[in-house]
């Protein structure tokens, strides 16, 4: 499905990218050439641009770009390309000179640094202005008339203005304004502006009158959302129910990504505010990531799987299968997201719609790969799917109401935040709807990680084809995308299936309710101590035998149990039991089972009677769905006879050392609490084992045999029996530890998903 979407995207892009990408028809020089040309221009204004820090930013005159798409034959409008780069040379604080070039390298702008002292002073103010005019007008100089004088931005100053007489059919005004003082030029600018009859708001330089309206809606959504976010954040901070650690990790990752981008210098300009300061905006962005993740991941209680692979990526299982699937889906769908604006422009349904060449900085970036990392874009997507949607979902229980409210918000949100299609208002709204639909598809069938991957990789894809269509090197992009895709596919086929079994309950470290858990942790650790205290302090001492036992709950409290009994006839009872389910309910039934076993065995030494009685009581009190499995053995120490029953429990392992034989002891028997007396009794079989010197009997719970490693293999009975065979010369404690370390080694760092209980009985060995 995702692959089909991707192919569709590739198809659309192949058909329509060069046709509808505005920058396709603009000549572009390289970054190095642009800087060299700018240096020359600065030199001519008398500024020595060596030893200074160079930054390059790009802007697109969208109105002009749009006009050019509709009037490709207007030579007048082609005098200067709509894509221009500003090259600033900063030698010290406030000593920043700026040169503007169009994408072909034609000078269009000059601004002198503060307290400028030109090393090439002109004879007079007029002569300085004249020289600047010649530089900016180039070969078009003869078609300009002027100069006339007009008021500059600062009313104290006057500018010299030259105007080009436009041909009759052209709507574009070409003019050059120069601000000179005494003998030097402070500011010079050539602008091509489109007359207002083109239905465009030329004052703001915006494409269409409706963009400000969409912008107001967009920012209202954003600020209302932020307000709600902050209120929830504060409330939950007080209640300590936030997912702080996960949010800190996410914020840390965001900070690292931004730091790399800043250090690389490529994307730095995008992260600066209007005053050129980047500290504030970066701090705000990292803070926003923290708030969104802290609140969003807890808010999404009902849609928690949506956060899971993201949490796993930053958590203990970065190699999870679901992570791979999400990554692959995101990468595969990205060409389609990039293609949406071109589809809108090319499909012919929306007259006069066009693609806006919004971000062409990649063409002049020293490190194009990093320049395509759109951090604010990812933040918007995280805000919508990670926070706004779960919030609305919580507030609005009815599905149709949710759709009715979330859909228009999403459409406006995506139309405005992408801002890539212009034309009649229906065109960008349709583009917004299509983007929302694509993101929504990934969110519904995959998760948040897929959505974020789509956003990030679509930046890469757009950057790659933009650069490629201008003859730039796209290999880093191809390599990165392929590597990402391979990694994702590899993960999705051979990753660890965290979803196996009871994912959310089984892997508590991924629980998003970390803070809530912390609150409960104190109480749980009391419960855990109480429960562990219920297990025997130490195995009984039986002359001629050694015994070792342990129970490791997977959660704070568990449903596993082992116990030793002293029976009225002097025999010793050894029992292991496992309650269905996990956590607190299982722990309660575990306690009940332990009590029943202890009290019933005070009155009877008959193995079958004891187990039948426990079953009768359990069946009376358990809810219908709960059952308990148990393996119970009564040992006659002197006669070396062990009587065993297996009530729905895993079979015991019997190692007959002297015979070199290992077997599973599995007499028939139903789980406890499943069915009442008669049928339970007829099914339950007792098996008698005649033990020999050196024999070992191992009781265990399914947490041992079903322990699962990253490769989805279970430890299994075979491995357990092999582990037992290797311990023939050890006493019970040695055997016990050796088995557990074999399980741990097998798991290779994966957290056990179930309680693990192990009891070993060894005959003899001077025990």
């Amino acid at each position, binding site marked *: 499905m995702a692959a089909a979407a991707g192919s569709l995207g590739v198809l659309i892009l192949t058909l329509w990218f060069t046709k509808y990408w505005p920058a396709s028809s603009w000549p572009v020089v390289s970054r190095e050439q642009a800087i060299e040309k700018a240096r020359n221009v600065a030199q001519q204004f008398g500024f020595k641009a060596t030893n200074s820090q160079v930054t390059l930013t790009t802007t697109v005159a969208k109105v002009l770009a749009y006009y050019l798409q509709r009037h490709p034959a207007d030579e007048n409008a082609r005098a200067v390309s709509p894509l221009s780069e500003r090259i600033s040379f900063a030698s010290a604080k406030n000593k920043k000179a700026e040169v503007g070039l169009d994408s072909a390298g034609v000078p269009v702008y000059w601004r002198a640094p503060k307290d400028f002292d030109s090393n090439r002073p002109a004879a007079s103010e007029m002569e300085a202005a004249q020289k600047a005019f010649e530089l900016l007008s180039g070969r078009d100089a003869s078609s300009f008339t002027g100069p006339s004088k007009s008021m500059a931005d600062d009313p104290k100053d006057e500018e010299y203005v030259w105007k080009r007489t436009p041909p009759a059919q052209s709507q574009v005004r070409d003019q050059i304004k120069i601000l000179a003082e005494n003998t030097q030029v402070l500011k010079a600018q050539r602008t091509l502006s489109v007359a207002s009859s083109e239905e465009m708001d030329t004052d703001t330089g915006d494409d269409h009158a409706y963009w400000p309206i969409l912008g107001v809606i967009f920012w209202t959504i954003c600020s209302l959302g932020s307000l709600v976010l902050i209120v929830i954040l504060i409330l939950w901070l007080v209640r300590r129910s936030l997912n702080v650690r996960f949010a800190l990790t996410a914020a840390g990752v965001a900070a690292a990504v931004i730091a790399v981008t800043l250090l690389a210098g490529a994307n730095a300009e995008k992260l600066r505010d209007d005053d050129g300061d980047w500290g504030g905006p970066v701090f705000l962005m990292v803070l926003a990531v923290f708030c969104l993740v802290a609140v969003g991941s807890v808010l999404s209680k009902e849609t928690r799987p949506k956060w899971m692979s993201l949490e796993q990526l930053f958590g203990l299982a970065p190699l999870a299968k*679901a992570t791979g699937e999400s990554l692959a889906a995101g990468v595969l769908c990205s060409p389609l997201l990039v293609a949406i604006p071109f589809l809108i422009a090319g499909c012919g349904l929306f007259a006069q719609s066009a693609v806006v060449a919004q971000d062409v900085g990649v063409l002049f970036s020293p490190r194009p790969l990093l320049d395509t990392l759109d951090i604010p874009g990812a933040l918007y997507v995280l805000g919508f799917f990670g926070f706004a949607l779960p919030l609305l979902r919580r507030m609005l229980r009815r599905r149709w109401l949710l759709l009715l409210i979330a859909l228009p918000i999403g459409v406006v949100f995506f139309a405005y935040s992408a801002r890539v299609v212009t034309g009649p208002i229906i065109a960008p709204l349709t583009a917004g709807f299509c983007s929302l639909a694509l993101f929504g598809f990934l969110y519904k069938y995959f998760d948040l990680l897929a959505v974020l991957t789509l956003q990030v990789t679509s930046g890469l894809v757009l950057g790659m084809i933009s650069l490629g269509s201008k003859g730039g090197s796209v290999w880093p992009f191809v390599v990165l995308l392929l590597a990402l895709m391979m990694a994702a596919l590899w993960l999705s086929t051979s990753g660890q299936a965290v979803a196996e079994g009871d994912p959310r309950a089984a892997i508590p470290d991924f629980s998003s309710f970390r803070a809530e858990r912390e609150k409960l942790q104190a109480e749980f650790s009391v419960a855990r101590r109480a429960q562990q205290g219920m297990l025997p302090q130490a195995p009984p001492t039986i002359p001629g035998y050694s015994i070792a036992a342990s129970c490791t709950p997977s959660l704070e409290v568990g449903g596993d149990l082992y116990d030793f009994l002293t029976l009225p006839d002097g025999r010793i009872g050894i029992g292991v039991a496992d309650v269905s*389910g996990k956590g607190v309910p299982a722990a309660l039934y575990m306690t009940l089972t332990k009590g029943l076993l202890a009290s019933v065995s005070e009155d009877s030494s008959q193995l079958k009677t004891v187990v039948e009685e426990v079953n009768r009581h359990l069946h009376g009190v358990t809810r219908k769905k709960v059952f308990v499995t148990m393996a119970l053995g009564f040992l006659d120490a002197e006669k070396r006879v062990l009587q065993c029953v297996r009530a729905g429990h895993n079979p015991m392992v019997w190692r007959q050392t002297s015979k070199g034989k290992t077997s599973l002891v599995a007499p028939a028997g139903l789980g406890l609490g*499943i069915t009442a007396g008669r049928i339970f009794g007829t099914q339950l079989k007792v098996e008698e084992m005649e033990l020999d010197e050196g024999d070992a009997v191992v009781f265990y719970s399914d947490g041992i045999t079903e322990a699962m490693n990253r490769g989805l293999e279970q430890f299994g009975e075979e491995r357990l029996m092999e582990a037992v065979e290797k311990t023939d010369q050890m006493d019970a404690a040695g055997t016990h530890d050796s088995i557990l370390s074999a399980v741990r080694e097998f798991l290779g760092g994966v957290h056990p998903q179930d309680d693990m209980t192990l009891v070993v009985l060894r005959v003899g060995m001077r025990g």
Partner: protein
Amino acid sequence: MANPFSIHKSTEEGLSVLALEGYLDAHTAPEFEKTVQAEFQAGRKQMVVECSKLTYISSAGLGVFMSFIEEIREAGGDIKICGLTPKVYQVFDILGFSALFDILPDLPATVRRFQEAPVKET
């Protein structure tokens, strides 16, 4: 697409067939439970649970089979199970379910068993 689980309902010679697919665990068990309950309340008391596409069953999943069986048998119906993969069969078997339920290789065999013994003798 974490934890996929689905139930496909159909009828076969008047029996209600519930074909399970995917993971039946603590999170998906309620869906199965609701389905069985709905069938029972609609008067379809003879149910076949077809498990050839069931890849995993946890104790909570097993609990669903137990929770209705007495009620259904008292009403003259039964739940019979067929198509278990060896891995899932082992889980049923260890718990002793083979003594409590009719477990059959495939659907036709289950249909025949319903004709021979509508309620399992226990």
